[in-house]
C-alpha cells in the first residue's frame, strides 16, 4: 500500500521502489557486519601490545637486578637476543649523566613511521651512578 501511494505520488513504479528498499536494507546489514568484523580483527592486537609492554618493563627490571649493564655492549646485546623473540625488535638507550648509549636488536633496527612500538623506562644504578634506561620494543612488520 505504501509503495502504491509512493508510486502514484512520484511517478515511480513499485518494482523500482522495492528494489531500492531491498538494496538499502542489504547495504545497511553488510555495513554493520563489516564494521563489527573489523573491530574483531583489531582487538587481538591489544593483547600483543599489552604483553609487549609487560615484557619491556620486565626486561628493565632484570637489567637493573643483574649486573649486565656493568658489562660490555656485547653482553647487553646477547641478553636482548637471548631473551626477546626473533620477531621482536628493540632499541635500548641508557641515559648516563654525561653520555647516552644506544643498543639495537638487530644492530640496524630503526623505528619506521608505521611501526607501533611500546616504551618502558626505569631509573637504574650503574656503577653507583644514577641513569635512565629506556627500552622500545616492537614486532617486526611482515
Amino acid at each position, binding site marked *: 500500500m505504501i509503495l502504491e501511494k509512493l508510486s502514484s505520488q512520484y511517478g515511480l513504479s513499485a*518494482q523500482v521502489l522495492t528494489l531500492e528498499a531491498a*538494496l538499502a536494507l542489504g547495504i545497511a*546489514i553488510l555495513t554493520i557486519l563489516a564494521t563489527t*568484523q573489523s573491530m574483531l580483527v583489531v582487538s587481538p592486537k591489544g593483547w600483543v601490545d599489552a*604483553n609487549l609492554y*609487560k*615484557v619491556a618493563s620486565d626486561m628493565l627490571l*632484570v637489567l637493573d637486578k643483574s649486573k649486565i649493564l656493568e658489562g660490555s655492549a656485547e653482553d647487553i646485546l646477547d641478553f636482548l637476543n*637471548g631473551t626477546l623473540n626473533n620477531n621482536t625488535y628493540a632499541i635500548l638507550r641508557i641515559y648516563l649523566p654525561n653520555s647516552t648509549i644506544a643498543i639495537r636488536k638487530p644492530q640496524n633496527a630503526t623505528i619506521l613511521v608505521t611501526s607501533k612500538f611500546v616504551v618502558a623506562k626505569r631509573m637504574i644504578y650503574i656503577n653507583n651512578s644514577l641513569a635512565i634506561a629506556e627500552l622500545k620494543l616492537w614486532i617486526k612488520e611482515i
Partner: protein
Amino acid sequence: MRMVLSKSRNSQIYALDALVAFTLFASILVLSSLSWHKLNNMIYQNEQQNELNYIALHALNILVKSAGIPVNWTNVSEVKMIGLSNGSANVIDPQKVTTFLDFVNESDFNYKFAKKLLCVGKYEFMLQVYNSTQLIAAVGKKPSRISDVAVAYAPIVMGNDTGKIVIAVWA
C-alpha cells in the same frame, strides 16, 4: 473490456513485484545468516584466545613475581601457592625451579596438581626455562597444533645468569 484488461495488467505487475521482493529478501536473509554464523564463530574464537592469553599471563606472573606460600617451600605438594622467585620479582631461585620441574615431570597426577597451582583450569600447559644461551628444561604437554595457543614469556635472573621462562597455555 478496457477496465478488465487494466486490472489484469495491474495484478501481473504486483505478482512480479512480489517475486522480485521475495527473491531479494530471501537472498539478504541467507547472506545475513551466513555472516552472522561466521561472526559468532569469530567472536567465540576471539573470546577463547583472550581467555588463554589472560590465563598464560596470570600463570607466568604467579611463577616469576612471587616466592610462593610458604616462602621457603621445598616440597611442591605442600605449597599453598606456587612461586619460583627468591622474594624479589623476576629473580628466580634455581632450587625452586628444579624442584618444581621434577615434580611436574614425575607423574600425570602431579601435572594435574601443577595445573591447579598455576590456575590454568581446563586448559593444558607447557613450561620452558632458558638460560642466557639455551633451553635448559621443558615440562608439561606439547600443544598438538599451533592455533588456540597463548604464549607468554618473562625475562629472569637465575643465579649469576639471565634467561627467560616461557609458558604456553592451550585448549
